[in-house]
């Protein structure tokens, strides 16, 4: 399975859970996992992806535990306030980890990997001036639509919902730093 982006000639390889050992430089391409949630394309930086599993494999949806590490369930559809009929055969649980914080999101389907040059991630138009400026890192032209690149720090931030619901728009991500453990999860979507 391959995905083709209209931004660039680069193709991509698909396969969740590959070692994330690339050297980051301004010229390095970035990899994104393209997801479908509630009929919308979203993208997540590959650096934060630990795996994408079927619901059957995950077992507990509240707190999937993979190789001893607990991935707290995050209701992303609820956070984004979009309706999502999640119960499809293609549903996946995407495991995330960033700066020692883990979480998991349930998505309608996983579309695949996309490799892009950083300049191909378009900024969110400045007309969007609400808290969504923290939700997204930008946009990717994808098929005939766009995929919004999620800010993983925001997704994993446990306290963000209460901040935004109370009207705060300038909340700073407050990640709880915990010792980082390596996960060697070979399960793939």
């Amino acid at each position, binding site marked *: 399975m391959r995905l083709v982006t*209209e*931004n660039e000639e680069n193709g991509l390889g698909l396969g969740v859970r590959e070692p994330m050992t690339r050297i980051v430089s301004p010229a390095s391409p970035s990899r994104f996992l393209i997801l479908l949630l509630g009929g*919308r394309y979203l993208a997540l930086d590959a650096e934060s992806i630990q795996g994408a599993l079927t619901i059957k494999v995950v077992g507990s949806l509240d707190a999937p535990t993979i190789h001893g590490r607990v991935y707290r369930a995050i209701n992303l559809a609820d956070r*984004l*306030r*979009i309706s999502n009929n999640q119960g499809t055969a293609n549903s996946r649980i995407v495991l995330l980890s960033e700066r020692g914080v883990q979480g998991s999101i349930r998505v309608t389907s996983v579309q695949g990997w996309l490799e892009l040059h950083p300049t191909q991630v*378009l900024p*969110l*138009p*400045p*007309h*969007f*001036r*609400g*808290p*969504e400026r923290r*939700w*997204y890192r930008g*946009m990717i*032209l994808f098929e*005939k*639509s*766009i995929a*919004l690149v999620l800010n993983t720090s925001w997704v994993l931030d446990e306290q963000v919902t209460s901040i*935004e619901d109370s009207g705060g728009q300038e909340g700073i991500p407050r990640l709880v730093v915990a010792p980082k453990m390596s996960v060697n999860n070979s399960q793939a979507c």
Partner: protein
Amino acid sequence: MLRTRQNHHRGTARQSYQLLVFFVGGRRLAVKAVDVSGISQWAEPIPVAGRTPFITSVVRQGKTVLPVFDLAASLRLTVQGSSPLCLRVKHSLGEMAMCIDEEIPVLHTLDPATLQTYHGKDLPSDGSYTNGLDEIPILSVSQLGSTE
């Protein structure tokens, strides 16, 4: 895609300026022609979850992605017609798109002497003019999205 309304103000042509008159939900509105960057067929908007009032989607035109200002929703109207149009306007933050009725917009030459203050609070305006019994507000593009 535009029809030109006959100029009734030839004597003041040097001082007059062009408006584009269009419809949203059957309501007639105007915008300065210099604020318009294009008109095309309306494409299916791509929703963007967020909390910015009336800016909740984008439209893609080739490799260009434009934020959509939902003018109809801001006026509590519904766009009319099965083939709505996309009005692209020049906002200070960048181009924006608006969905308007399928009725073909019309160019109108306005004598500045007929420009009046628009007292309505339903949209940001650069004034208005009268056409028969109708008061046509001139949409202030620069203020779109700046108020909730």
